[in-house]
């Protein structure tokens, strides 16, 4: 297939992915909206909260409960799935989530196809410019989310993942789009593949972590209140906080590796492993901020909420690094010519 045909196919795949993910996002949103108790009687609310509490209880209980856990549940339901909540779930909410899940898998496949086709078109890893970086990053986010969804009920998270992913893809096709091109000499290195791939995966995980941390802070404020909100159907604040931490624990070593690999590559390409180039400065800042987050979590006297804020600040730095430093700052990472 010619490069031109590949390019067209890649873009067609990308636009299809965006269409499908938009529908997935709407279905996830419908899922959350329909989870709200249909009638606003206090009784219903109480029931919902009780179910939620039961769910939480189950999640906190030690494993190994076996048949005693909830007598009448059919065997195939035993596991992570919170059966009580399912029973309470309006049928249409459950249906919406099912559709959303299928659509997000389809969207992820299309997005992956777009990235792979782009790679075939340019004969290298599609990580040479902002556009490629954005679609690959979005792909990793969707892969991580859909993959994780297979092991855990993450339907509540869907809208908070597909939304930002769509914004990223929208930016990619409008603002950042560039035609396929060969790389400039300094980027021609296998370190590009290692360094940028790992960086992108780390950023994807930090991104999902930030979404969950945001929900945690939100849940933390509304939890226990009497306001009727779909937040009642999300995991408890404590649970959200742990999930977010789990993601950061994976992403932080990956980012550490990214910085080290970048330094090795910088030494190859520019003669010195650390030049305090703006991109390096921000990679360092991101690393330090996330290190502070991990520290804050184990510092006695520091509230988890404040730790979560530090993690969110870390993600803000990632956005600055990617969206602002790449485009506006003068440095070696942006040099054209040699």
């Amino acid at each position, binding site marked *: 297939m010619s490069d031109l045909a590949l390019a067209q196919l890649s873009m067609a795949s990308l636009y299809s992915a965006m269409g499908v993910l938009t529908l997935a996002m709407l279905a996830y949103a419908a899922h959350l909206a329909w989870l709200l108790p249909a009638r606003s009687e206090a009784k219903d609310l109480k029931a919902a909260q009780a179910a939620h509490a039961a769910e939480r209880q189950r999640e906190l*209980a*030690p*494993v*190994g*409960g*076996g048949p*005693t856990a909830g007598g009448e549940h059919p065997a195939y339901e035993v596991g992570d799935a919170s059966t009580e909540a399912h029973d309470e779930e309006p049928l249409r909410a459950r249906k919406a989530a099912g559709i959303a899940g299928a659509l997000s898998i389809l969207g992820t496949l299309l997005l992956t196809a777009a990235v792979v086709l782009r790679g075939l078109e340019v004969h290298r890893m599609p990580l040479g410019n902002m556009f490629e970086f954005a679609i690959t990053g979005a792909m990793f986010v969707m892969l991580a989310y859909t993959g994780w969804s297979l092991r855990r009920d993450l339907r509540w998270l869907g809208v908070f993942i597909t939304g930002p992913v769509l914004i990223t893809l929208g930016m990619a096709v409008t603002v950042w789009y*560039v*035609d396929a*091109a*060969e790389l*400039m*000499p*300094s980027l*021609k*290195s296998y*370190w590009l593949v290692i360094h940028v791939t790992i960086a992108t995966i780390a950023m994807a995980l930090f991104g999902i972590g930030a979404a969950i941390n945001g929900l945690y802070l939100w849940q933390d404020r509304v939890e226990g209140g009497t306001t009727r909100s779909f937040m009642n159907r999300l995991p408890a604040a404590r649970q959200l906080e*742990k999930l977010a931490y789990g993601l950061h*624990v994976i992403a*932080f*070593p990956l980012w*550490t590796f990214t910085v*080290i690999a970048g*330094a090795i*590559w910088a*030494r*190859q*390409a*520019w*003669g*010195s*492993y650390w*030049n*305090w*180039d*703006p991109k390096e*400065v921000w990679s*360092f*800042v991101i690393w*330090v*901020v996330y*290190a*502070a987050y*991990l*520290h*804050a979590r*184990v*510092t*006695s*006297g*520091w509230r988890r909420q404040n730790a979560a804020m*530090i993690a969110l600040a870390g993600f803000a*730095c990632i956005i600055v690094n990617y969206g602002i*430093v790449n485009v506006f*700052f*003068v*440095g070696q990472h942006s040099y*054209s*010519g*040699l």
Partner: protein
Amino acid sequence: MSEVTQPQLGLLGWLRWMWRQLTSMRTALLLLLLLAIAAVPGSTFPQRSINATRTAQWIADHPTAGKVLDRLGFFEVYASPWFAAIYLLLFVSLVGCVLPRAKVHWKALRTRPPRAPKHPDRLGAAHVVTVDGSPDQVLEQWRAALRRSRFRVDSHDESSVSAEKGYLKETGNLLFHLALIGIIVGVGWGHVFGWKGDVILPEGKTFANTISRYDTFAPGPSVDVNDLTPWTVTLTRLDAVFEDDPAVKGQLGMPRDFTAHVDYARDPGGAATLETIKVNHPLETTDGTVFLLGNGYAPHITVRDATGTVIYSDATPFLAQDNNYKSVGAVKVPGATPKDLGFAGLFLPTGTITSHGPTSIFPQPLDPYLALTVFEGELFPDGAPQSVYSLDTSHLTQLTQEGTSDPLRLWIKKGQTMELPGGRGSITFDGVDRWAGLSIRTDPGKSLTLAAALLALAGLIAMLTVRRRRVFVRVSEAQPGPDGSPRTLVRVGGLAKDDDEGMGEVLTDLAERVHPRTSTGPSAARPKDRRTTDE
């Protein structure tokens, strides 16, 4: 006595308090956040060590703010006292925090797991079951299973087992923090004992690694600049490839590949080997690594006097100003008569004249031109060092076109010779060579830095993934079975550091392995279940 010692104790107490504050996790956290914030201005303001010209320009553009910020070190953030203060405090805090912890951990590594509590099943995760076999047998089974799961196993009495694992977590933590110190030491070592220098080398020329041959040279404080190993490189050819397919939108003329072909000799006059230097492929020499960090054109220019005698003939490097290699430079001919002659202007690899003046439209030398103005007078008025790419015109006058006051402009195509007015001779544009911008650097600390960084990564992974877990098993005789065979009541409890969701699962797994058939039996942690099995 108290009269004398009291104030001393006060001072000591005060110091101790300071030290405790400094080495607390809270302070470490604040210093980390401060370090992140302090690093930012280095990316928003131009930095002198990276781009001195842009820094000077910025200060000139913002006279008031520039001066104040300069005083405060904002143009040399990473060498500024306040930045150093933050990271030095952080590392003092680090040492003060980690060393005592290392001592504690060293002891912990060699002490036995603590005695099992009376009721292990009252711990966070628990498992209670009654099984066949005598208490001793059962305990032995548990011991074996725990050992297989790589727990450190010990007993403080006959009827219990204490087990612990996950020491690697704390080891990783200490390794990580100590390795951070290693990184700092490596970086500092490189600064003190390393050096770097730059040189512009036209094709055909040879560079010898001695201080006098460098255009710029920056040694660390402990470098003996007269002690460089004098290897040589001769640039035989520089290949430059640019995108020349106009079909690739927006990429025409973008750089694709640069390769410097050199003859490298370890000793001057010694046998030379053919080497290539590319952007991601430096040349390792016996003393320093050679990087190809720039390139450009060196038009070959010959100047003759009125009699036709050659008074200047050389490849003269010009510096590229844009992606199409519109380059600036100067030719200085001090031996001209009656006065020194100086030429300044542009080299254009693919030259053309637009309404904005001469420019280049492609980086390759498809149609090379020189666009020069001419000066005469004193080139080096006070012998002060000056840039080779421009003229110091303070003691020069510009030549004009004959009979007018318009400056004389020479537009010379490759191969052409232009007569200079007033019998001053002629200038010939013979041809075009390329030059390579080589940067030669040593960093004796880089291996240490890399090793420390990788150790830090290993420590980090260990600290974040390993779980510290304790398991306690207590057995007691239960009512014998119907056939009179011995039965044993086993109570197992697990204790984990931090919130460890996996602890329950670990216990269940262990129990399943030790008592395969009974594991589906009553599970603990549910008070009502426990009551049925407890006597």
